[in-house]
């Protein structure tokens, strides 16, 4: 059982998390023409790398998404950080 660090809640049991996506994948602009190949690549192509990987996960209990770096071979967690570009200032309403 792994321990994952939620940037908001701290280390928690892996059962509280869901894998969401590979980061850096941009949704094609579907109002224009997209080839079947490009759409299939967006839907199905994942890097599935060996070694250090970056992944988007959701902490189900606080429902925040974050990027986690971990090693897919050793299962070591290398770090995590929020997807938020700006965090609300502390104490702000």
């Amino acid at each position, binding site marked *: *059982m792994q321990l994952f660090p939620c940037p908001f809640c701290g280390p928690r049991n892996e059962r509280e998390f869901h894998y969401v996506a590979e980061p850096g994948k941009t949704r094609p602009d579907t109002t224009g023409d997209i080839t*079947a190949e490009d759409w299939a690549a*967006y839907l199905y192509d994942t890097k599935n790398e060996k070694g250090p990987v970056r992944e988007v996960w959701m902490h189900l209990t606080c429902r925040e998404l974050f990027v986690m770096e971990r090693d897919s071979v050793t299962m070591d967690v290398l770090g995590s950080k929020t997807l938020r570009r700006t965090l609300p200032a502390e104490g702000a309403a």
Partner: protein
Amino acid sequence: MSGRRLSQGGLIDRSRLLRFRFDGRDFTGHPGDTLASALLASGVRVMGRSFKYHRPRGLWGAWFDDPNAVFNVRLRGDELPNCPATTTALVDGMQARAVNAWPNAENDLKGGLDLFHRWLGAGFYYKTFMWPDWHLFEPSIRKMAGLGAVDGKAIDGYVADQLHDDCDLLVAGGGAAGLAAARAAAEAGYSVVLADDHPTLGGSLYQGDEPIEGEEPQAWVAAQVAAIRAAGGRILTSTTVFGLYDHGLAALAEDRGFARAPRLWRLRARRTLVATGAMDRPITFADNDRPGVMSLQGAAEFLGRYGVLAGQRIAVLSNNSHSAPIVARLRAAGAEVIEADPAEGAPRALGGKRLSGVQIGARKIDCDTLLVSGGLTPTVHLWRHAGGKLDWSAEKAAFVPGAGPDHMLAAGAANGTFDLDPALAEARAAALGTPHATGASGYRVRPLWPQPGSKGRQWIDFQHDVTLKDVELAARENYVSVEHLKRYTTLGMAADQGKTANMAGLAAMAAIQGRPIPEVGTTTFRPPFVPVPMELYHGTRRGQAVNPLKRLELEPQHRAAGAAMGEYGGWLRPAWYGPEDQSAITAEVQAARQAAGVFDGSPLGKIEVMGPDAAAFVNFIYYNTIATLEPGHIRYGFMLRENGLIFDDGVIARLAEDRFLISCSSSHVAGVEAMLESWRQDGNDPDRIFVHDTTQHWATITVTGPQARAIVAALDTGADPATLAHMTLTEGRFGDSPLRIARVSFTGDASFELSVPASRAADLWQAVLAAGTPLGARPIGLEAMSVLRAEKGFIMVGKDTDGETMPHDLGFDVPRRKKKAAFVGDRALQTEAANAADRRQLVGLRVADSGTVLPTGAHIVTGDGPQRSIGFVTSSYFSPTLDRPIALALLESGQQRIGDRVQLRHLGQSLSATVTAPCALDPEGERLNA
């Protein structure tokens, strides 16, 4: 003669006598004994029969490494199968019998099977029982081979506690190294847990009689225990560390006595020290499975821990320096010991059920017991569980721990350090994290591995009856990888997981192929280290607690109304009201069509989406255009996944310009919310959209039917239902509470969904029934609702859709063709597959009015040529409203087949039906505004 109890020595309490039975005979033992030690002390030799050949077997080892003595044990009415005799503590009154033997292990009727061994080699059943069908033979073969039988009676209160804990250092193994490490770490201020599977700590210290750091073993152990406890360390005896998992999680099984479920510890350890010792390896020679051939280390354990001398005239066959102190100890205990060198010639055990001697080359030794030691194998299982690597030590002829994760440590014999003082120093250094170099080893071993091509039947895996010839056969048939060898011959796959067999097996394969042992490698080590009951894993999570149901605010009211409650999508909901289902469902449907039905719709999702970007957001999430929805209005629509498949359906209401209420399916609330959150935070500005699940904050009561409007009008809500158009929503009051009235319909009749804060649910339920009962209304359950919606051809996601259904398959094609804005799954609706002409589409099926209801799941098949499934029935009921069966189905090119007669097949039965539009009742929708 064979084993006997000495008048002194060991860790047993000779002042008390425990009585037990084995294979129908009476025996005695003492507190501190195991079943195995008490039987050995009583002179019993044959304690089991082998798995396949039913060969007589005696003890090999004294602890978890014994593959042979496996018993069904009964105590005061509770029976457990497959108890290893060597690790089952003796309790007064136990009745044990050897598994896989009848009438007993000594005289097993199936013992004759061994004569046919020539035809029963590895995988014989794959080759022999091919014709006409393996399944014909399987039951009798399974019956012939095997281990214990379950009596089928569950033991009362057999429930495992599960504890969660953590520590700085977990020490697995309470021998000399483990105790020294635990004490050093505890005294240095670390929180320490020391776990050992024996009831008494000390590991292999009782095997010899050498002092440890100047003290007698028992005194030294007691001193360490006292010091560990004084420093705040915790000690768990009779507790096996059976698995190490990611991120320092250790699983421990604490024995709580016979027929009581062990306690599971989930221990999160910042560091883990493997101090699990080493096991003696068997030597592979002809008839090495005869009762009386034992592990030298095992005999030393029986002597040191239980005061039992394994035999009187003992031959010792050893290739290593570890045997000298044990031989001395055996002699001191009164045995006659003859040492022999296995290099003198190929050994062969002599005798049948009783060993009579051993032939080594030309030399014949008469003996009643043959103790063998083929070298020490470090117990590296836990090291491997945690991802540690193994290095091959040619000097020690063994795999020893190599590189490992930072938090993993190994010390003592488990680390290949077999000498006592170096092991202690190594363990203390590991515990404190100080650098340490273990010096030269005093342990000497001459490699001694199986000799392929040599004569006789030589056992590799005792428990699964795998011989050297089986390994050779596997190699000839090219099962040369150890993982293939294991699965083809079943080597190492018995309940003991090859603790004694794996090294011999891979060494045999290495010798056959002429490859070095480290190149052949080991199979994967996986938890559990020893068998543990399944109860350990689920603990108290049994029955309903496995997946607790969500409960309705109105459950007491439903029960009072005679509801039959059932599980629907994780909720406990009324299925129908009344003692009998069919008549109740019919009455409820008729009431809803003729007067009104009152339905608890509280589990229906109520997810609010708010904020300045909310409108654009829901327009993107939904297949349907939501941007044009006016405040106060409601629209039905679908949510898709990016692959275009339907994820959920339901209505969405616009409460205000910047505020929406999504009514997703009852069982999909968590999934829809997670999907909304994913899109909100990944691809949108999360500070301009807010998602809030209010499902359990509000209770919803749906009133549906011709009298629904009158019933709602009778409530003092401040809103006029007469002016509320279909697919609109208004807010009123219920007493001093807010009330939402949504006019939507899942039945085809005028319906009002009344939502109040959950705390007011009972009052609203009472008020609605008070107003409705005089008008003929009655509560309706989920089953009636399913019939009502099916009459109208309304779908349930997951029932009338499957993992291939797109919205246009259900007739909702407009957004696919017309919606301009981007939405989830849009591009996937334009693929070749999405445009295929033979997609399965939703249709209705009509059978003759007097016909029977079609079975749900029945396949629609092509009429001519080889039959092929072209669709299946998804929902099927008898419609009380139409007084005939109705059905919905997904059918290839269904829209074009309307009017066609189709054939159906179900469990060998042939049926027929006519394809219709999905809606069977009131297709013009006149009832909605009646």
